[in-house]
């Protein structure tokens, strides 16, 4: 009797083993698939970043690249509405700033307004700033910069700052060295 019982128990155990092993295998398999999916996702994100960088390098190669940035320093005397940019008398950018974007600039953010290509030589940039100036009136000012484009990327900054001495906003265009 004992032998029959023992044999039956062994058979039952042997039959259960594949099921247990199968369940463990399923869990392991799921874990492995999840890890693979995470690894794949990381690869896709890295590839996406590389493609973006490559696209910028192809469309705007360093030797002809020009980038124009906008920044704001304080902002008591001017509330920015929009900036229009002309290079060599041709309008290349026109950007409307929302309240949130203007806040971001006031908090130290820098906005890349324009990215383009220019051949080497002398060029002129004119920026028009529209907004609300003192005393709560519509305000439109321009700033001009003549610059030489050499081989290599050119970075220009349009900076809006408050002039306490003049109690008015100042608009400066300068080159990054």
């Amino acid at each position, binding site marked *: 009797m004992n032998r029959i019982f023992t044999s039956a128990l062994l058979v039952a155990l042997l039959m259960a083993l594949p099921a247990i092993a199968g369940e463990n295998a399923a869990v392991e398999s799921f874990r492995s698939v999840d890890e693979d999916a995470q690894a794949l996702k990381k690869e896709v994100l890295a590839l996406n970043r590389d493609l973006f960088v490559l696209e910028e390098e192809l469309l705007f190669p360093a030797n002809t690249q020009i980038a124009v940035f906008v920044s704001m320093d304080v902002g008591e005397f001017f509330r920015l*509405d*929009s900036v229009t940019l002309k290079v060599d008398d041709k309008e290349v950018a026109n950007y*409307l*700033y*929302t309240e949130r974007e203007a806040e971001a600039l006031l908090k130290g953010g820098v906005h890349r307004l324009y990215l383009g290509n220019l051949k080497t030589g002398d060029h002129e940039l004119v920026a028009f700033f529209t907004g609300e100036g003192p005393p709560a009136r519509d305000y439109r000012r321009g700033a001009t910069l003549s610059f030489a484009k050499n081989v290599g990327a050119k970075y220009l900054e349009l900076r809006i700052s408050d002039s306490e001495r003049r109690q008015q906003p100042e608009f400066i265009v300068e080159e990054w060295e």
Partner: protein
Amino acid sequence: MPDTHTTTVLPHAARKTSVRRRLALGLIIIAVACCIDEVRAQPSTAPDFALRSLERGNQRLSEYRGDVVVLSFWASWCGDCRRALPELNDLYARHRDAGLVMLGINLDRDAERAREFARVLELDFPVLMDADGVVSRLYAVEQVPRIVVIDRDGVMRHVHDSPDAAGSDVLVEEIVALLGN
């Protein structure tokens, strides 16, 4: 007189090849057509834009990502728009607390005309001026009123060109379904 008209007859193998080529070309054309239909049927991301509003500063569509947005293209010279806008205003009032954003995009060249129109109709939602038609072209607006419904992920889900859409149950159901997601 000898017959000068000659007819070229292709050998049997060449004819078979020619038929196969035409068949293959036909299949390719059908496959491409199906793909085009497939692409057209895919919902697409709503093109981003920024416009000046009559009262509330500049508005950028992408800043409303996370909300359900209804764009309503209209003009003061459009009779159907005069009927549709109050309906949309009611819809906005009922669902704004649930996260519905409504942006009226006006196509008039004269902002004062649009402002007066909005005042008379007592519109509560922002009215954005698209006098140059830049945004209208982005959204392929060929007639007004046009209503575009955008989900919380910035994807265009529904487009209505019917003048009766504004007050319809269909539009309400679409918006409620998206707000619930």
